[in-house]
């Protein structure tokens, strides 16, 4: 238990922000910013370093997955807005992030 706690503390200490979770239908994405400022975007267990910004208010990213391909996403965190979207495989889809 003690080692698990230490591991958790270590994991969180290496992150700049808590992970942001985004959903677009059955597409689930996790966004993590490391303390070094690298933004990791995970989709279907594939993680890549994305370009753009993520903060407590907004996600604005592009990423290129070796298998899944290119992706762009823009969303206000915690808000439903028609401006929120995920562009993936040639389609623009609604997106929500929290």
């Amino acid at each position, binding site marked *: 238990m003690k080692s698990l706690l230490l591991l958790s503390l270590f994991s969180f200490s290496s992150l700049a922000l808590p992970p942001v979770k985004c959903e677009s239908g059955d597409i689930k994405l996790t966004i993590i910013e490391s303390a070094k400022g690298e933004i990791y975007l995970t989709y279907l267990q594939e993680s890549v370093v994305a*370009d753009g910004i993520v903060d407590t208010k907004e996600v604005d990213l592009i990423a290129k997955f070796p298998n899944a391909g290119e992706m762009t996403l823009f969303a206000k965190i915690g808000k439903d807005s028609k401006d929120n979207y995920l562009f993936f495989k040639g389609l623009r889809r609604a997106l929500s992030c929290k």
Partner: protein
Amino acid sequence: MKFLLLTVLSLFALNLKAQESTDIIIKSRFDYESSLSFIKRLRAFLMNNNFGDPYNQSVQKPIVIDLNRNLQDLPPGTQKWIKDLQSVLQLQLFESSYKIVVNDLSYSINDFNSELRPTVSYLNRVEYVTMNYVQGLTISATSIAFQVELKKTVSGDPITFSVEVQNPQFNIRPEMMVEMPMGWLTSIMPEYLLISLQQVDLKKLFDTIVKKPDLIDITVQDLKMPKVAIKIGNKTISFDREKIKKFFITRQQEMKKGVIDLIQARLGNRLENILNDTPQELIIPRTYALESKINAIFDIQEMSTNNSKLLHVVMDAHFCSTEEAVGSDFCWQNKIPSTLRREIPQKTLDKSVRDLNRYMIESDSNLGVSVSEHYLNQLINATMVAGLWEKDMADKEFHMGPEKAFVLGEEKGTTFSLYMDIVYKLKGAQRLLVGRSELRFPIKFGIGLNIVDIEGVPRLQIQVKKILTDSDLLIEGLPQYGIISTVVDIRFRKKVIKEIMKEINEFNNNILVDLELPEFKGTYLEELEFFSDGLGRANASLRLGKKNKIGKML
């Protein structure tokens, strides 16, 4: 307190830097289809600049393959051919070394598709890979020499002789698709831009062709061999020239496979980069002058690629008043001045760049150009200095006031706001009625900014698309930009405004600037439509193909 002041000053300096050093941003991302168009142009450019053709290269140093080594790693057919060759040359009789020397190994690609991908970047150095999918290839050499060296001789010096297959050509049929990666880099140096071909990888190519020798046709021009007779004790051994010749002619197919097997097996990792430690380099200027009616200077400042493999190039740009100024030092110290109309914070610039990145992926664009509002205003000033606005203005009673004209990318859309400081000369009765000889006021147009191709010549055109001037603007002026209005307290104001509006409306659809850009011919900047991103920048994009497609960035 001092620290605070320094911090504020530094931030201010950073903000200024953000604007002044990002006049033009060029972005590119190439896929399989668009890469080919780019590579073809790059290839022509390199050949025209004495770089040579990367798709038609020779290895300068001879390739030497030692045949004394164990043959076990070679396929059985090739092992047998080598043993038979030894027998024909009677090598087993001597203490000798023997090797194959390939002189001037070269390849010439007949047909290929290519994909250009940036890989990594650091400190203004970007590395790329061109993944070439080759269909139809010729591998040739000036000669392949089967060289024998007798070590123990009477004189003590080794005797070397060789049987030379002259000008062999291995033609790989187009049915076989082979991969041939090339590694490139570009690097911005203080004075120039370095383009370097770092790697030509033939390993995949040989790994593929060695498996399908039937798809390789061989031709040989001649066979050259010396007249050699060697005396061992009382016995003289003469080489049987006819027998050797027959061996090479009748067993040409085995020789073809044998040579390819040997190159593939013995050169191993060396094939991963046939350029070895001698990359091919081309140094080109990083500063360019475009001399036409206006003298534009472009200087490459930064080059990088991001994790999504979008190439990002930042250029500083300015204008010189004369050709002499261009020639001396690109007029760095004597640019045509232009007032910075708005501070665009770094945060806004970052957002603009992110928007462009997203747009390029979503629209599948290959090329993006982003121009700062401040640069557009330098351009407007330069065209005025060159007298390109005079005709339109002279047709009216309009003259430019001290603030002249400037552009703001205030709203996202197809047009930019063009503000002009106008001095309106009143004449005759009008002058008497109004009680003034001239009036000063701002006018506003929605302008389109495009590069169009007219009869094969690219032209930059600034065209009035909307009249955005209203009576409020004429009366209130634009004090925030230094344009005051003297219309506010004149006699017969309504009537005068009506008259001015009539004249302004005549500008609708007028082309205010029409500038030939012949040097843009053959670049990707032949036709572009600029859109305002509402963040102070003009953006254009292009999808490359047989016919390039202009992006509608709305």
